[in-house]
């Protein structure tokens, strides 16, 4: 009797052992936690993929314009002082007198979208492009990485025409030309010409940190090259980060104008 019980116990134990082993084999594989990043991990080489955000929100927004810029040429000073009427910065005008193209929902354009209201953006790399998807105004840019030459006479575009390459395993450098001169450089009404060239430098410090430097070269408007961003700190966000839309819709802009202006007509 005892021998039968022992045999039964062993048989049950064997069945259980196989069951547990089979269960372990069919358990779902462990996925990386999408709610976290991994600063301690080595930075991937030649890879900026992911969602990035500025470390300092106010610095990213820069409501009063760039921190400093090179001196204006005569033409630059004329546009800055007599033509553009910004809503903020050292030359700001009272409400109602501003002529910022953003007010009517013209595109912010490049590089203003890096120098003003830089918020979360996502980098996606394909075989021949580095794509940047921006929360602000929900626009994207494509930087060609297929080795093509920057065009000598690019058609004006709100966000320009960009090519880029890896300077080393952790530094990506892009050049942009053909930026529509209707765009402003920043929220302070600093101008640029259609001949401006912009260099972006993304330098990855570690797995979770990157620096952005933006150089402006525009001899028509500024007497020398200058930095619109100088090693602006960016941090990698968890891959499941969801960002709200920030779109300038003409209908909403019109509604805002009507609702705030209505009390004045009563």
């Amino acid at each position, binding site marked *: 009797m005892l021998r039968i019980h022992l045999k039964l116990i062993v048989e049950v134990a064997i069945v259980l052992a196989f069951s547990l082993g089979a269960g372990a084999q069919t358990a779902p594989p462990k996925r990386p936690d999408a709610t976290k990043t991994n600063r301690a991990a080595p930075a991937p080489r030649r890879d900026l993929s992911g969602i990035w955000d500025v470390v300092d929100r106010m610095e990213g927004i820069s409501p009063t314009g760039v921190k400093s810029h090179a001196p204006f040429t005569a033409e630059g000073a004329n546009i800055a002082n007599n033509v553009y009427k910004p809503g903020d910065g050292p030359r*700001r005008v*009272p*409400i*109602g007198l501003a002529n910022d193209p953003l007010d009517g929902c013209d595109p912010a354009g490049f590089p203003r979208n890096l120098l003003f209201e830089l918020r979360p953006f996502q980098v996606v790399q394909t075989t021949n492009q580095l794509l940047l998807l921006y929360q602000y105004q929900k626009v994207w840019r494509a930087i060609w990485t297929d080795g093509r030459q920057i065009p000598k006479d690019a058609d004006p575009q709100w966000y320009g025409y960009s090519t880029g390459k890896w300077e080393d395993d952790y530094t990506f450098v892009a050049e942009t030309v053909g930026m529509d001169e209707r765009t402003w450089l920043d929220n302070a009404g600093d101008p640029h010409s259609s001949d401006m060239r912009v260099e972006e430098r993304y330098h990855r410090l570690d797995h979770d940190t990157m620096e952005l430097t933006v150089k402006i070269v525009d001899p028509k408007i500024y007497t020398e090259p200058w930095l619109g961003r100088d090693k602006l700190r960016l941090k990698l966000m968890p891959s499941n980060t969801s960002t*709200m839309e*920030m779109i300038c819709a003409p209908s909403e*802009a019109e509604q805002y104008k009507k609702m705030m202006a*209505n009390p004045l007509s009563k």
Partner: protein
Amino acid sequence: MRNKAFGAFLLLMGFLAVSQPLAAHHGAAGYDMDKQLVMKATVTDWLWANPHCFLTYDTTDDKGNVVRWAVEVSNPVDMTKRGWTKHSLNAGDQVTVTVRPAKNGAPIGQLLRVVLPNGQTLIGWNPAVR
């Protein structure tokens, strides 16, 4: 507490000819940075939209006249970070608002803070808080 100069703006309204649209990326050039008005208000509309969310409300001046105000805060993304939602304010809510008024005396301004019916205070316009 009601600023006694509050009623003066009613006279100014008739002379104001401002019809320019309000800029969406303006600084505080049009607002009186040295003045804050505290008003008991009845919410008429709370617009959760870009470029700026804004609140309209009715308040009564010193002479018993009901005046409609429109005050702005920041965009929905920034307001969400400060604890606001599209349901934070509803038509009919009885609230207390602190407002930085326009320099020209019109009933428009920046909403600095609001005390909700349940006693909670929400911070409104504060460019330093993002």
